[in-house]
């Protein structure tokens, strides 16, 4: 009874903070937090354009970019170009990824294969693949072949290295167990070695996806007759900055989609892994 005021006053700030905490949690669950920063940037950007701090030929307003995107979508040019770029990216990923995976597997399992090829591959890895563009244009012209080659070369190394690393790091005790329990080499590969290397292979895939888009952007910007990069370069000729900015945003969106896909694959195939459980 001696301190009635203090006991009454204490709960108030706590309740407020509790409420704020609840709101925070709810926002986080809906995913608002992930997107709050991009939205804020967008608002600031639009405000700068509206009040005349940014002129149209330096950076168009978000509304103008959205309008340009809408027009492109209506004309059908958007879908056609995105589709072309997507096909190039996938073809390059599949070809380069498959070769990288094959080499990684072979070199992880066989010492002979590793001795024959690893040194060469490690040397080739240190050449930035984009430095080959002049040569590639001489070889393939500006056809599909050039872009396919560059993308395939770019994705090859992360997939090769991570597949090799994954196989090398398999617990030898598990392999010994598999052998002593009578698994044939094929079964051992299917039940022990491949699943054991998979987390590492998927890390390689995520790296590869990043390199895939980067390579494609550069290749399409330098020499192409279709695709998102071509769309952007053509717009530059006519000072259509809204289309240029829109193209860049598409790349960002496609990169996000690719990353989300890789995450989804990780989540479904690595459910056994405590680190991916959630």
């Amino acid at each position, binding site marked *: 009874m001696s301190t009635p005021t203090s006991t009454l006053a204490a709960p108030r700030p706590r309740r407020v903070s509790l409420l704020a905490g609840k709101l925070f949690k709810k926002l986080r669950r809906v995913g608002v937090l992930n997107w709050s920063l991009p939205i804020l940037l967008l608002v600031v950007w639009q405000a700068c354009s509206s009040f005349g701090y940014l002129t149209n030929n330096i950076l168009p307003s978000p509304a103008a970019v959205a309008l340009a995107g809408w027009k492109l979508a209506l004309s059908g040019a958007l879908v056609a170009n995105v589709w072309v770029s997507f096909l190039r990216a996938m073809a390059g990923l599949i070809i380069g990824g498959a070769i990288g995976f094959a080499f990684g597997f072979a070199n992880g399992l066989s010492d002979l294969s590793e001795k024959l090829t690893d040194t060469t591959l490690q040397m080739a890895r240190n050449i930035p693949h984009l430095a080959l563009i002049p040569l590639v244009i001489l070889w393939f012209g500006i056809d599909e072949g050039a872009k396919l080659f560059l993308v395939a070369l770019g994705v090859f190394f992360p997939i090769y290295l991570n597949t090799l690393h994954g196989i090398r790091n398999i617990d030898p005790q598990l392999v010994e167990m598999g052998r*002593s*329990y*009578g698994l044939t080499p*094929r079964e051992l590969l299917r039940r*022990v070695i491949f*699943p054991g290397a998979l987390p590492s292979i998927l890390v390689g895939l995520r790296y590869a996806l990043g390199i895939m888009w980067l390579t494609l952007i550069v290749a399409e910007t330098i020499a192409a007759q279709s695709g998102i990069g071509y769309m952007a370069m053509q717009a530059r000729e006519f000072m259509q900055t809204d289309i240029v900015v829109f193209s860049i945003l598409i790349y960002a969106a496609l990169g996000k989609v690719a990353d989300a896909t890789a995450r989804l694959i990780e989540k479904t195939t690595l459910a056994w892994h405590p680190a991916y459980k959630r």
Partner: protein
Amino acid sequence: MSFVDLCPAFEKNADPFSDGVSLTIRGLARSFGSTKVLSGLDLDVPTGQFVAIVGRSGCGKSTLLRLIAGLDEPTEGRLRFAGKALARSGPSFGGPNLAGHSLVRVMFQEPRLLPWARVMANVEIGLGAVESSPQTRQRVIEALEAVGLAERAGEWPFVLSGGQKQRVALARALISRPQLLAFDEPLGALDALTRIEMQRLLERIWLRDRFTAILVTHDVMEALTLADRVLLIESGRVTLDLAVDLPRPRRRGSAELAQLEEGILDRLLGDEQFESCGSARSPRR
């Protein structure tokens, strides 16, 4: 009340074919570089016997087990199962024979479960290179029932406790009805209570299936509780071969067992005054 008492699978009739196999070892030697770990070892294990091998660490007992299990090649000497030499690798060694039995299975110190396979698939590995079918699934469930884990068949290994993981490993070793089961200190990492439970489980399963069992352990009391015969290995040779002729189930800490344990421990510790074991490094004698 332990999980063993709750398992109806134990009351099932034993498989008439799952008898053990006899093992004959003559002049077995294994060296790593210039260090001799085993030298001139002779051993006869009759069909269905439970043999425990004790010794200090580094005395060669695990190497002997690895040789018996075919995980390693002897430098010299012969190993014969039921009088026949053995293809040391390939499906004829690890895989099941015509009657559906495998010859030798090992239970390792670590559970060695595949973390990416559910408990059921892990036990199925024990069948070797066999495609899964309703029959194999039935056998998996039976093997899991025998270790009291049938209801965990769909779990990932990482949710299981250490003792449960070893029970899954035991089910995996049992599913192919091996004729010889080699245990490489499988209970070493378990807590005292789980250890005792596992010892009882091992004994009941052995009494049911009557395979030949070879248990490597550093726990003399464990060896005496479970085995028909206890071998002491020192400096790569068998230096004590003790028949334990006591009725089962044996009570840990009974006067007879304690007396035998003291004898073995005296021997193990007494030797220390004359030669430090370290037999892997300096095999004298």
